[in-house]
């Protein structure tokens, strides 16, 4: 397994090996699926669209619908204007969504298609919408694409009427529908009215009913996206995925924002709860305090199994930083923080976090890949890995327990339903981490050392 990976780390400037990110459009597609009755549309050749749908389906085990402009060589030379026009007509005719959310691919970006004017040129049926965003895959990562699509919705649709709707706009980072549900649950418990964009719950975790519904019940509605302009405040969760949307909403509709980390771990969830408390001027209900107290209780109870255990965490920047915060709270020792997404802010935030807990030797790198992380591990092993499916080859090669979290998880079920955000989500993640470490102890210890009570 991964036996060609040498221990010696060499500088690479041309070759990416075993990436820890993917391209923008898949993120844009995911964000668009979080809008009710929306057809994500990939403006490029159909292969990209096919790959992206496949990937989302593999992670969520749910249908991920999206259409494509299906460029041919001709369109690639002369531009994709007529492909887009034909697409819009056919999509409304055949699939009848309320809105089409167009994103680009590296093909349409490279030829420089002007989506804005294409859309202006395209007849759109009454009451229907077409929006777009640019998602050149040679910039950023899938997280960037997710952020860009949110921005596209806001730029096209959100309006400030001047009459506040008393709501708070919640913009989640690139997280699972189960996480989005948890963020909403906390806002409800805090009695703060909100609109969440995007909201893939009820779409990418739709129940089995015996009837396929192309547009399931969930997703942010168009009136709600329009109404974002009248929100009194917005909260973004995870700066990589949400800063753009927050800024757009401020610039376009003067909605002030708070940018929070993904609420993974105690302190990050506390920050969310307190932000809501400030906005709603409400007391924190006992229910939340209870959840929090239970989480702290469990972490205290089980701390001997966590103490100083070394961890490698990899995946999307906001998620990695959130998980790092949680494991630090548990007394663990993050050794490697890796994201493939570019952005030095990841390193800065990571270092700040380490400094709070006096961890000095963590290696934190953006624009990195799993091949490099594997090389570091070969030189200095860890007790645990936390991240998506692609780490499993390393986990196997080096015999390290792996806790799956983040995107993409292609090789397990249920992950998209169980949150890792909020106090409840942290509890679930703490359980997984504890089990992974304790199962390992049970597996590795001598017969006479097998503990009946732990």
């Amino acid at each position, binding site marked *: *397994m991964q*036996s*060609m990976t040498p221990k010696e780390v*060499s500088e690479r*400037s*041309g*070759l*990416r*090996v*075993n*990436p820890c990110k993917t*391209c923008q459009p898949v993120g844009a597609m995911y964000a668009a699926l979080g809008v009710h009755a929306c057809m994500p*549309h990939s403006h*490029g*050749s*159909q*292969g*990209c669209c*096919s*790959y*992206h749908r*496949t990937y989302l*389906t593999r992670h969520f*085990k749910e*249908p*991920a619908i*999206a*259409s*494509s*402009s*299906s460029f*041919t*060589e001709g*369109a*690639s030379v002369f531009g994709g204007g007529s492909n*887009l026009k034909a697409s*819009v007509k*056919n999509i409304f*005719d*055949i*699939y009848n969504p309320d809105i089409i959310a167009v994103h680009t*691919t*590296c*093909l349409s*970006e*490279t*030829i420089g298609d002007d989506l804005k004017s294409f859309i202006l040129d395209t007849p759109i049926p009454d009451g229907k919408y077409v929006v777009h965003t640019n998602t*050149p*895959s*040679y*910039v950023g*990562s899938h997280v960037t694409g997710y952020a860009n699509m949110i921005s596209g919705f806001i730029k096209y649709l959100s309006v400030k009427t001047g009459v506040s709707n008393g709501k708070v706009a919640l913009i989640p980072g690139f997280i699972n529908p189960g996480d989005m549900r948890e963020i909403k649950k906390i806002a409800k418990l805090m009695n703060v009215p909100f609109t969440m964009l995007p909201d893939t719950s009820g779409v990418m975790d739709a129940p*089995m009913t*015996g*009837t*396929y519904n192309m547009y399931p019940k969930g997703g942010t509605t168009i009136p709600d996206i329009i109404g974002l302009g009248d929100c009194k405040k917005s909260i973004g969760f995870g700066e990589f995925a949400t800063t753009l949307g927050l800024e757009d909403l401020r610039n376009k509709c003067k909605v002030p924002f708070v940018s929070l980390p993904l609420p993974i771990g105690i302190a990050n969830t506390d920050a969310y709860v307190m932000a809501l408390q400030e906005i709603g001027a409400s007391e924190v209900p006992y229910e939340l305090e209870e959840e929090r107290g239970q989480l702290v209780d469990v972490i205290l109870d089980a701390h001997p199994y966590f103490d100083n255990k070394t961890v490698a965490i990899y995946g999307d920047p906001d998620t990695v930083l959130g998980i790092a915060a949680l494991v630090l709270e548990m007394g663990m020792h993050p050794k490697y923080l890796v994201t*493939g997404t570019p952005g030095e802010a990841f390193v800065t935030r990571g270092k700040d976090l380490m400094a709070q807990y006096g961890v000095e030797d963590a290696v934190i790198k953006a624009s990195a890949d799993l091949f490099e992380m594997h090389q570091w591990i070969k030189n200095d092993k860890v007790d645990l890995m936390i991240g998506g499916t*692609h780490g499993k*080859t390393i986990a196997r090669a080096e015999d390290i327990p792996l806790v799956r979290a983040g995107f993409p998880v*292609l090789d397990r079920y249920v992950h998209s339903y169980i949150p890792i955000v909020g106090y409840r989500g942290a509890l679930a993640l703490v359980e997984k981490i504890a089990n992974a470490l304790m199962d390992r102890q049970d597996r590795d210890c001598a017969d006479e050392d097998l503990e009946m009570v732990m």
Partner: protein
Amino acid sequence: MDAKGRVLDKYNARVYKNRKEHVLVKATGDQPQVIAANTRVIPGIMTHRGCCYAGCKGVVLAPIKDVAVITHGPIGCGFYSWGTRRNKARPGEDGKNFVEYCLSTDMQEADIVFGGEKKLRQAIKETVEIFDPGMIMVCSTCPVGLIGDDIHAIAAEAEELYNRPVMAFSCEGYKGVSQSGGHHIANNGLIKRVLGTGSGTRIKHAINILGEYNIGGDGWEIGRILKKCGYHVVSVMTGDGSYKEMQEAHTAELNIVQCHRSINYIAEMLKTKFGTDWIKVNFVGAESTAQSLRDMALYFGDQELIDRTEEVIAEEMEEVAADMEYYRTRLKGKTAALYVGGSRAHHYQLLLQDFGIDTILAGYEFAHRDDYEGRDLTAEIKEDADSKNIESITVSPDPEKYHLRLTPEQFEELKTKIPLDTYPGMIRDMKDGAVIVDDLNHFETEEFLKLLKPDIFFSGIKDKYVAQKGGTLSRQLHSYDYSGPYAGFKGAVNFGRDVTMGIYTPAWGFVTPPWKHTPTLVGTYGGDF
């Protein structure tokens, strides 16, 4: 109105005009039925098709385990085709297995603006330094062709510099109309630079297996059976394949073709170049496997081989008989719809027959007309602008290695008995009234499933959950839902087990909550307190 009419009726005029040519209802008559295939997808239609890169790199080249395949492009394409197809491989002689790795130039904005050649050069250099592969292949993705990076020149230069073959494949996603163009491009490259470039001489009863990608270990199971019969497998194209073995491809006496669509060009060119005959085989299905083994033995016409083949068939059939019979009792009378790439929609019908399951709808994702109608009409197929964009190369007989095993008379005689140098296509094997759909799209999937109500829909991941949410069991025939092997005798049992499990799994009984069946209000009878 028939099923076809009722589904297509909902389209607007333009879409209807196009799609009606791609759908037909099987009817045996004097005239062979014609279907439109290998044409462009209508923009906006939710097709399941992929692109040229997926066909070239993803399907044909990536399974070659000892070649470092570098994707030249932004990160996505390489990432998606990394480890997801289940083309299993074990490290070969040199201990290398690139199937586990994803190598890409991960092009950034500056590379798009100023050209990516420098980065590609560097990436090749680093590949050599870190992995020292015997052979390198570079596959380009969409933007590369547009910005004009000359990957062929860079490959040639690197070949000199690092003293090993470095090949380039211009398989940008926008070329052609599906994965199919990519298969062709990969086939061309392999024939030009790899196949038969070795120094070996013909080996008795030696074969190459073409179009077998070892999904779920199929190739290993096929190999096991063939070895048991007494064949020497020179190379597999390309599942668990090795470029070193492929270099000796000319030493085989016969090429057997499993997936016709993706590799027929090579079969054809190997015939022209080395004189090696090919036959179409199908190792999916116990009966089909037996038939293919018999065809192969007949080709060699060697009594010992024929006898041994019968022994193996008897032995293997015996071993699976009880299981096959059991699953047949569970599955008989069920109906299936199939929508897969370019050969499986045909192969699996024959396996389903082993269990008494009828196929009521079948379609290919990226086939050409010959995969439906049979290869004899290849000459009839008109080239359109899209297929012209894919280079078609001609090879000529190799002065030293060309050898015909059969005399023209023997060849003609055998041709009446076995599928020699030909493939009769899928339609022939289907029952009257069955629906055949080329490039079955999302809308048509939904509608046909509602209308025809098959018990099982065999397809891929993108439509799997569409079917299942609607209450129809769906099993993936690209990835076997992470099971397998499905090929050969034992594979047939695995398949029977998986389908049975899917149909009878208890959860289907819980889809509708019990309160939907009982009245909401519990009434009281008069006087009942």
